[in-house]
């Protein structure tokens, strides 16, 4: 996909998130109004008041979930806005995990990150870095058995910035694991990695992938 095509998808998605945000704002106020009205009724005059209150609470919880998702989707849609910018890796990875949690849940695999104690800032292409990380994640999801865990941890070691992606659990077939010549996902990671300035290393013994990025000067 070229940059114009990516920007097109980003723009349309961002536009829709604005609209969905307004829908969620309306749902919040409408359910709030119902709560207001219920608050001045008594259980005697309003049969099943408790049931109504509980249902309104469920609507409000779902609305909050929707707001959180749409916020993240809006952020994601704006990733292609710039080809190079300063990124806080802690934030970028948390963002990715939030958006991809569902992929793990379907396979009963947990996704985790342990943010670095300090902010880890790099200048790179956020869209391609996110895409490279997603492909690493997909690689582990494809090869891990249910019950496993995938970790994406940023590390700051003064001279370079590292993203360490590894898994805990049993792999389905370890014979060709981390063989980049036979894995389509890893080929993609290599390709995309170039656009984000990342150097990618695979460690067959430790079963991990490292994305090395130059630190912001």
């Amino acid at each position: 996909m070229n940059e114009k095509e990516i920007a097109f998808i980003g723009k349309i998605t961002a536009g829709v998130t604005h609209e969905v945000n307004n829908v969620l704002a309306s749902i919040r106020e409408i359910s709030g109004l119902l709560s207001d009205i219920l608050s001045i009724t008594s259980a005697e005059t309003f049969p099943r008041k408790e049931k109504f209150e509980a249902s309104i609470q469920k609507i409000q919880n779902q609305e909050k979930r929707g707001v959180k998702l749409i916020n993240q989707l809006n952020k994601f849609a704006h990733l292609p806005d710039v080809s190079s910018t300063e990124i806080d890796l802690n934030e970028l990875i948390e963002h990715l995990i939030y958006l991809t949690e569902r992929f793990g849940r379907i396979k009963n695999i947990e996704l985790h990150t342990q943010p670095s104690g300090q902010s880890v800032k790099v200048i790179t292409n956020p869209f391609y870095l996110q895409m490279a990380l997603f492909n690493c994640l997909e690689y582990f999801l494809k090869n891990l058995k249910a019950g496993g865990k995938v970790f994406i941890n940023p590390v700051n070691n003064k001279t370079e910035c590292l993203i360490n992606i590894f898994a805990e659990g049993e792999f389905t077939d370890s014979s060709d694991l981390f063989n980049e010549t036979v894995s389509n996902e890893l080929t993609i990671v290599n390709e995309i990695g170039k656009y984000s300035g990342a150097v990618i290393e695979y460690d067959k013994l430790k079963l991990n992938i490292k994305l090395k990025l130059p630190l912001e000067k």
Partner: protein
Amino acid sequence: MNDISVLIVDDEEELAAVIAERLEFRGIKAQTALDGETALRIIESDPPNIVLLDLMMPGMSGLEILKKINSFKLNIPIILLTGYGSKEMTLEGMNLGAFDYIMKPCDFDVLVTKIQEALED
């Protein structure tokens, strides 16, 4: 709060109407305007105590409406309703003298508190 009147300017008709209804529920008089022209007409003829102003609107933008309200010199506090991608507009709005801003979807209690603060200011 009975003698307070709020004008909600937002092109999202249902959202504006429900916010108005909730404010009425708390004893605050509220009316709505779905566009800049209507809002300015209301402000000129029957100035409210406070204006809740959506920034992203078709036609006259929130910032244009804010500038026009300022030109009336009525000293009406304005609370901006902001959404995605309106960070710069919000900053500009605050520089133009808006009292405060609140991100949509807003916490209604926070909104009411901001209205009270604006009146006390």
